[in-house]
């Protein structure tokens, strides 16, 4: 009877897992629930500290994989996917006894439980002594998700514990290991842009820097081009970094930048805002006396709303607005719609390969200073716009043509959602 009962419980839990497309055993759902069980609290840290560290550990995996984790303190225990607890010696009904202080500090079971040896001196992230609970938790969660030990220096899945480093993060290979099991992170974006920063050196010289931002609904990521990843700890809620912008996101970002103009606009619905870089928030009233938010129809006569996206083309001083299959070119010099517009998107941006075209409803038009190229993003794909260098090498390419599409996550890596409850830890 005991065997039958145990086998029944095991088979129920085994249903949570399936063979992935890659042929590996892994969780078969995207949102996993976890709980630090009440009888398994550590005697060394406060309960809140323990829960915070575990929330952070789960979030770190969420930031590099399509998995989301939510702390579940209310459901029946058998519905919780991953249970965690601290114990010493014989603990928590586990058949693998802990050995006391030293050597084994934790273990994890493939079906989802993680046990920490409370005879070890676990400490919080800010401590430089003891054993980092965060580091151990990230490691053990890796096992629960299906990763084995990895002997590569720098891997979070090394079996032996290395003392506190100033910070530890998931490196490229660890990310690819988990993505080999669960796939990469895909999704549409509301807008993508390079934000220009001007810094004045002591000698008076002005340095231009830029940062790349991806926005999706109410949160955003800073993308570090040189590191091929997002900033550690992202995504961040919109209101954290962009004050006065609608908290549920925007439709478009435009930076009008010429010798005589330097204005940044965010568009949402029927309105737009101008951003005050000096004070790091939107203008309530700009130096020209305009109050914000302002109607798009007032600021950009002839442009319909809502728009899908927009970008500023420095070559002809026009803002190109996209709405469904139409493109509207707006001259900032004359403050009016350019002659001949609107035009069909295929006419303005013809396909290089005839069947490979987004055909409208663009999510984001993004000029990248890093790539020195304009990209149109739609869904999980992007098309690069033919530039002058392309046409110099291959004159047969159409002007403003769209190169064959590629996948966004093969150009900009690891832009992953986290569970909404994990946005603020």
């Amino acid at each position, binding site marked *: 009877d005991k*065997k039958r009962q*145990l*086998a029944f419980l*095991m*088979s129920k839990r*085994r249903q949570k897992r399936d063979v992935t497309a890659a042929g590996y055993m892994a969780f078969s759902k995207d949102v996993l629930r976890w709980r630090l069980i009440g009888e398994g609290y550590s005697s060394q840290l406060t309960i809140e500290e323990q829960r915070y560290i575990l929330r952070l550990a789960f979030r770190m995996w969420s930031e590099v994989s399509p998995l989301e984790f939510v702390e579940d303190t209310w459901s029946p225990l058998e519905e919780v996917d991953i249970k965690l607890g601290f114990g*010493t010696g014989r603990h928590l009904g586990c*058949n*693998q*006894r*802990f*050995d*006391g*202080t*030293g*050597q*084994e*500090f*934790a*273990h*994890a079971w493939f079906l989802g439980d993680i046990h920490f*040896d409370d*005879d*070890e*001196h676990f400490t919080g992230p800010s401590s430089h*002594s003891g*054993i980092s609970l965060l580091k*151990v938790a990230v*490691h*053990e969660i890796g*096992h629960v998700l299906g990763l*084995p*030990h990895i*002997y590569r*220096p720098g891997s979070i899945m090394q*079996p*032996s*514990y290395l003392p506190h480093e100033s910070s530890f993060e998931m490196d490229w290979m660890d990310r690819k290991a988990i993505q080999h099991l669960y796939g990469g992170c895909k999704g549409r974006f509301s807008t993508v842009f390079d934000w220009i920063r001007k810094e004045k050196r002591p000698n008076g010289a002005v340095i231009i820097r830029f940062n790349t931002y991806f926005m999706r609904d109410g949160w955003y990521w800073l993308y570090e081009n040189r590191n091929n990843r997002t900033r550690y700890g992202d995504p961040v809620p919109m209101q954290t970094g962009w004050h006065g912008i609608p908290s549920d996101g925007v439709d478009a970002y435009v930076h009008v930048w010429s010798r005589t103009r330097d204005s940044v606009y965010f568009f949402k619905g029927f309105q737009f805002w101008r951003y005050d870089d000096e004070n790091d928030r939107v203008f309530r009233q700009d130096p020209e006396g305009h109050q914000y938010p302002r109607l798009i129809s007032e600021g950009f006569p002839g442009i319909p709303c809502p728009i899908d996206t927009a970008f500023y083309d420095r070559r002809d001083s026009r803002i190109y607005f996209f709405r469904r299959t139409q493109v509207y070119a707006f001259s900032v010099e004359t403050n009016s719609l350019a002659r001949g517009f609107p035009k069909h998107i295929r006419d303005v941006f013809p396909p290089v390969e005839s069947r490979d075209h987004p055909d409208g409803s663009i999510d984001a038009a993004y000029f990248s200073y890093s790539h020195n190229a304009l990209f149109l993003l739609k869904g999980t794909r992007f098309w690069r716009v033919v530039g002058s260098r392309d046409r110099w090498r291959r004159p047969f390419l159409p002007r403003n043509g769209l190169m064959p599409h590629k996948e966004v996550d093969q150009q900009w890596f690891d832009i992953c959602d986290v569970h909404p409850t994990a946005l603020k830890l």
Partner: protein
Amino acid sequence: EKLFHNRDHSDVQIPTSHQAPVIKDEYEAELFLSRYGFIQPAHQEEIQVHESIQEDFLDDLQATILEGASVLHSRDGGTENQVFVSALKEFQMVSGLPVTGVFDDATKDAMNKPRCGVPDKEMDLNPNDAFNDTESLLTWNLNQSQQMK
């Protein structure tokens, strides 16, 4: 409580009974290598039944496997010693140590370092049996227990 005197508890004293046994000789090293999968147990019919096997097999399965491995080591010094040396070399290699095949001080230190309890290599109890799911494992152990009786 665990005794301490400093404000930051940095001098907390761990009773000896709560300290993990230090690995200091080849026998304990062999247990370590077995525990973490560097030494695979022999086929089940070759594992000698040890007196400490109890009916509560879930609790002592680990001990059974380790004891079986240690019996394996001592039964035929030549062959089993090669198994031990081979496993030791593998551990040294993955740990970034000089691959000597000798249980030296560096290897001893590495074995005594804090580490995760998950085996580095899956233990294949019997290559001919599907021990990858717990149901089969439970069945095997129940049969063993009944056979002993």
